[in-house]
Structures are given as structure tokens and as C-alpha cells.
């Protein structure tokens, strides 16, 4: 593993094109993340087509740079205009914006940047240490275990999704059902194609993700009138006083550990990690009343957790092929386009690629720190980009991005359909990420359930194998617990 990582380091460090791609990815990722209404997932989805013409290594360098930087970029708009650029920055605004209103926006941005770097590095360490171990354990898995792990991923998604677990489950089932459209890979029989040639190949993950995360947000932006913003106009000095910053290291470390471990839980997402980190620090603080009034602790804790989740989310993606969050779901789509399906065999068959992921992520974290320190004042201006041009430009990017996957206008229609679906789901409060997770995991689930049946010819195989049974029990508990809680809450009081 060390050899592969060292080779990957030399390969990237001595390749000016790769370094350039990393820097460009960081600049664009931070800028998009800073724009209100453009989430990290959306940034990744619309920039994905840029990677189509690249080699797999260059594509990963670019996409991981966008991924890492956009997660940090979300804090810029949270601090300056009180709108989180990404869901992970939702807690940052609670103290970041008040800091900005006090004339300390520059310091808040630096706190966010340093905490993001610390979190990113700790998440990276977790990835490097645990991914090989998980992959090694997963090598013992056979079809029943894979099927059970997929069910577990979906159950965790429903458990961890914001809002109603029941609605998240329905959304996940919609995704699983949509994944069955097209030719069945085992028998080559067409399903739900309604005689349409375009549906024979199934629904593409990228057009679906661009539609549900990109177009749906554009439609939502069109629905509402321009929100009256009160941007912070004075950035102030960037470097916070050392006396204030130095004691915050342990706090950043705690946030990073929380973020990295929560991020590693399939589908748990950054919103949970940042909320837990913020709540913990508030509880541990001797002056909890300061939280929410513009204290640096309220910026450092969630931002370190937010970025630590990046490395954590890559663990289930690389080792099991299960997305850690919606962004890694898009990354899986990108890998599939480049002809690579992530899973436990990655460490045996594509160890060079794993090395590239390790090194590319480390470069992206460091580049985000450098670009952020140099360009924070510039990024602060981006939040005031004209809304009209932004919305129409993003829509055109979505069109081009969907078209470019297979050079097909049918994919643009698919994107539009998913955009409408995502928009309607947002309106009724149904989480949209489970649909994409269902699309990603549907074929894996079907393939492994059917393979298990062909090999073992016994339905009880999922319950007689210890790992499969344990994983299924955890999945059922994860599903049943919030559903029972929901039902108890709904019961009318006597």
C-alpha cells in the first residue's frame, strides 16, 4: 500500500497538469460552494463533465479538489450572508454570521478555513488507516453479505436523512424501482422501457443527480422572489489573535473525530456531524451562553466536523461501493463512467488507484488551505454574484453536463424529469438524496440477491450466514427505531 501511495505521490507531484487541475478544482469548488443555493453535490455534478476527457487519475485529482473545496466554500456564504452554501455549513452560520456582523468576518473565514484543514487532515488519516482494514474484512463477503450490506446502506440512509424516516424510505424505494428501468444485465430482458430506445440503457446516475440536485434547486430559486440579503460588507482582518485561536485546537480535534466517524457511516451526511459537534462543544463549554452570539468555537467545531466527513465518506465508497453521502454517490457515477466500480477488490486489483485517491485528497486539502488564505477576500465578493445570470448559467451547465455523458439529448430530458421530481419532493419535505442512493445501490442489490439465489437456491441463506444476519438485524433496528419513535410522537395525547 505504501509503495502505491508513494508512486501516486510522485506521479501527481511531478505532473504540472495534475497540480494545475487540483488548483483549478479548488478555486472553482470554493467559488461554487460559496454561492448560495449551490451545494457541494450540485457543484460536483455540474463539474463532472469536465472530467470526461481526462484520464482516471486526473479526473480524481480534479473531482476530489472540487469536493473538498466546495465543502469549505459553503462556510463563506454562511458567514457573510447568513445562508449556508452547503448543508454542512448550516450550523456555521449560527456563530459565523454574528461574528461577521461584529466586523470579524475575515477572522471567522480564517477560523473556518483552519478548522476545515484540520478536519480534512484527520478525515484523511482515518481513510488511510481504516479503508484497507474494512476492505480486507470485506474480501470475505460473498453475494448474501453484499446484499445485506446494501440493505444496511439504504436503512442507514433512511435513518440518517433529515425529516421523516418514512418519507426517506419511500424516496429510497422510488430510487430502487427507477434503477430497474432498462435492460436486465443478467437476462438482457427490457423492463419498463415502454418501447423507448433511450430507456434501454437505463437511467443514467449523472443526469439523475444533476436533475435532482441541480435543476430542482434552480426551480426552487425561481419559485421564490429574491431573498432580501444583509451581506456583511466589512471583512476586517483575516488573522485572528493567537491568544484566542491557540486554545481552540482541542475543540477542532474533537469536531474532526466526530465528523470523520459520522462521515464514515453510510449516508449519515455532514448535517448530522456538524450538529453533533456543535452540541457537544456547547455542552462542554464553560460559557455556553456565548454560542450563537458570534464566538469562534461555534465556527471551529462544525467546520472541522464538516470537512473531516470528506475522508470518512470515502471509506464506504472505496471499500464497499456504498456511497458515504450524496457527493460520493456522484463520485461513484463518475467512476462508473471511467469504467471502475468501487468495492473491496479495489485494494487487490486497483491499488494504484487507491493510492491516487489518498494523495489527491491530501493535495486537495493543502491546496484548499493555500487558495483559501490567498483568496478569501475574493471569494467574499462572489456571494454577491447576480442571481439572474447565476440561475440561468447553472441551468445551462446542467444541460451541458447531462448531454455530455452520452452525447444524448434524451439524458437532458431525463435530467429535466428528475429536476421536476426533486422539486416536488422538496416541496412536500421528502428527502431527495435517497432516490440517487437507490439508483446507485439498486443494481448492486438486485445482482447480489439473484446471484445468492442462483448459487444457494435457498431464501434463508441471508439469515444463516453470521455476517449477513448481523448486518440485517442492525439495518432492521436502524429502520424500526425511528419509525416507532415517529409513531409514538404522532399518538394524540389523552
Amino acid at each position, binding site marked *: 500500500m505504501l509503495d502505491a501511495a508513494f508512486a501516486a505521490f510522485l506521479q501527481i507531484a511531478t505532473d504540472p497538469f495534475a497540480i494545475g487541475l487540483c488548483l483549478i478544482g479548488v478555486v472553482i469548488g470554493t467559488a461554487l460552494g460559496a454561492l448560495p443555493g449551490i451545494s457541494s453535490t450540485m457543484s460536483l455534478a455540474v463539474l463532472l463533465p469536465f472530467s470526461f476527457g481526462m484520464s482516471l487519475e486526473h479526473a480524481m485529482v480534479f473531482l476530489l479538489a472540487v469536493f473538498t473545496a466546495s465543502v469549505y466554500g459553503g462556510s463563506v456564504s454562511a458567514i457573510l450572508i447568513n445562508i449556508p452554501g452547503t448543508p454542512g455549513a448550516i450550523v456555521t452560520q449560527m456563530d459565523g454570521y454574528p461574528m461577521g456582523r461584529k466586523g470579524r468576518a475575515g477572522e471567522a473565514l480564517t477560523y473556518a478555513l483552519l478548522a476545515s484543514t484540520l478536519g480534512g487532515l484527520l478525515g484523511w488519516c482515518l481513510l488511510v488507516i481504516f479503508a484497507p482494514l474494512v476492505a480486507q474484512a470485506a474480501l470475505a463477503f460473498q453475494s448474501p453479505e453484499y446484499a445485506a450490506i446494501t440493505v444496511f446502506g439504504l436503512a442507514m440512509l433512511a435513518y440518517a436523512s433529515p425529516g421523516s424516516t*418514512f418519507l426517506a424510505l419511500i424516496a429510497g424505494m422510488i430510487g430502487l424501482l427507477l434503477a430497474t428501468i432498462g435492460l436486465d444485465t443478467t437476462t438482457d430482458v427490457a423492463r419498463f422501457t415502454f418501447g423507448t430506445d433511450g430507456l434501454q440503457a437505463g437511467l443514467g446516475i449523472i443526469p439523475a443527480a444533476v436533475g435532482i440536485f441541480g435543476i430542482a434547486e434552480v426551480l426552487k430559486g425561481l419559485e421564490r422572489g429574491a431573498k432580501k440579503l444583509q451581506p456583511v460588507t466589512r471583512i476586517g482582518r483575516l488573522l485572528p489573535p493567537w491568544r484566542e485561536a491557540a486554545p481552540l485546537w482541542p475543540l477542532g480535534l474533537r469536531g474532526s473525530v466526530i465528523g470523520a466517524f459520522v462521515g464514515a457511516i453510510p449516508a449519515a451526511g455532514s448535517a448530522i456531524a456538524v450538529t453533533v459537534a456543535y452540541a457537544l462543544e456547547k455542552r462542554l463549554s464553560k460559557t455556553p451562553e456565548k454560542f450563537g452570539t458570534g464566538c469562534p468555537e461555534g465556527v471551529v467545531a462544525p467546520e472541522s466536523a464538516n470537512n473531516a466527513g470528506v475522508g470518512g465518506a470515502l471509506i464506504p465508497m472505496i471499500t464497499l461501493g456504498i456511497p458515504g453521502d450524496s457527493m460520493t454517490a456522484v463520485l461513484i457515477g463518475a467512476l462508473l463512467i471511467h469504467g471502475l466500480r468501487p468495492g473491496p477488490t479495489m485494494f487487490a486489483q486497483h491499488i494504484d488507484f487507491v493510492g491516487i485517491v489518498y494523495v489527491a485528497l491530501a493535495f486537495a486539502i493543502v491546496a484548499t488551505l493555500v487558495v483559501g488564505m490567498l483568496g478569501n477576500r475574493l471569494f467574499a465578493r462572489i456571494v454577491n454574484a447576480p442571481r439572474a445570470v447565476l440561475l*440561468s448559467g447553472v441551468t*445551462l451547465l446542467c444541460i451541458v453536463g447531462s448531454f455530455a455523458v452520452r452525447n444524448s439529448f434524451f439524458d437532458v430530458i431525463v435530467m429535466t424529469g428528475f429536476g421536476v421530481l426533486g*422539486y416536488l419532493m422538496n416541496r412536500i419535505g421528502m428527502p431527495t438524496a435517497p432516490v440517487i442512493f437507490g439508483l446507485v445501490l439498486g443494481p448492486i442489490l438486485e445482482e447480489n440477491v439473484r446471484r445468492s439465489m442462483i448459487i444457494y437456491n435457498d431464501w434463508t441463506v441471508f439469515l444463516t450466514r453470521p455476517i449477513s444476519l448481523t448486518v440485517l438485524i442492525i439495518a432492521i433496528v436502524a429502520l424500526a427505531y425511528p419509525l416507532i419513535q415517529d409513531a409514538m410522537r404522532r399518538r394524540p395525547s389523552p
Partner: protein
Amino acid sequence: MKETLRSHSLSLAITGVMIVAGVMLLWRNLVSDPIVMQQWGRDPGPAFQPIVMLTLLGLSALGLAVTSAINALRARGVVDLGNGIASVAMPAAMVAALLIFVALAPRIGFLACALVFTAGWSALIAWRDGEGRRGIALAVGGGALVAYGIFTVFSTMIGVPL
């Protein structure tokens, strides 16, 4: 508060009914195909996952429709559909514009479509946001510039056959 609850419950009930209708349509499509439904030996066959998903989704959606309808009936208040319809006019127009874009781009060219689409929507959004003539003109110019930039990057630099 109760009015909001009623509107939300009603939306969920309608969603549940629509999903049930979709499930019935797909079920009919699936079972009417003899190739999909035939026996495949030990393989559960191509119909297996769709049948499981349609069953689970159909039952869940039915539960959603019934419980939400009951909640909507319990909550008092008037549901104002007029306001809801007015608020989705622009999104609906965007969806129509996207479909028109798909229909026209192969005929009149991607660049022409992109310029008209982006400049037009920039102007419309700027006007709706209450911008003056100068703001609208700037939005049109900015939109056209963005469209040309995106086209150049993807067509010339990346080689996408737009």
C-alpha cells in the same frame, strides 16, 4: 399553523395517491410482458426486484395517502390552492423551456439555443426581481457571455459535440 398542517397533509395525501397510481401503471406494464414474467430456473428473474419494490412502494404510498388524508381532515382551516399555483408558474415555465431547448437544439444549433435560453432567462429573472432597465440589460449581456463561455469550454476545450 393548523392551515399549514392541513395543506401539508393534503400534499402528502395527493403524493401518496399519485405514487399508488404510478405503481399500478408499472405493475400492469410488468405483468403484461410474458418474457419478463417467465420462469428463469433458480434465478428469481428480471421481474423479481420490480415486483418486490412495487409491492413495498405501493403499500407504503397507500399508508401515506390514508394517514395524511386523515390528518388533513382532522386539521381545520382553508387550503389556498391559488397561491400555490401562482408560485409554481416560473418553475413550470422553466421546465417547458428546457423541453423546448431539447426539441430545438438539434435543429437550429446548440449555441444559438444556449444564447437565447440564457440571455432570455437572465432578463426574465432580473425583471421579476425588480431590476431596472440597466440591470436587465446587464443580465442579458452577462447571460449571453456565460452561455458563450460554457459553449467554448465544452465544445472547443473538452470536445463535447454540442
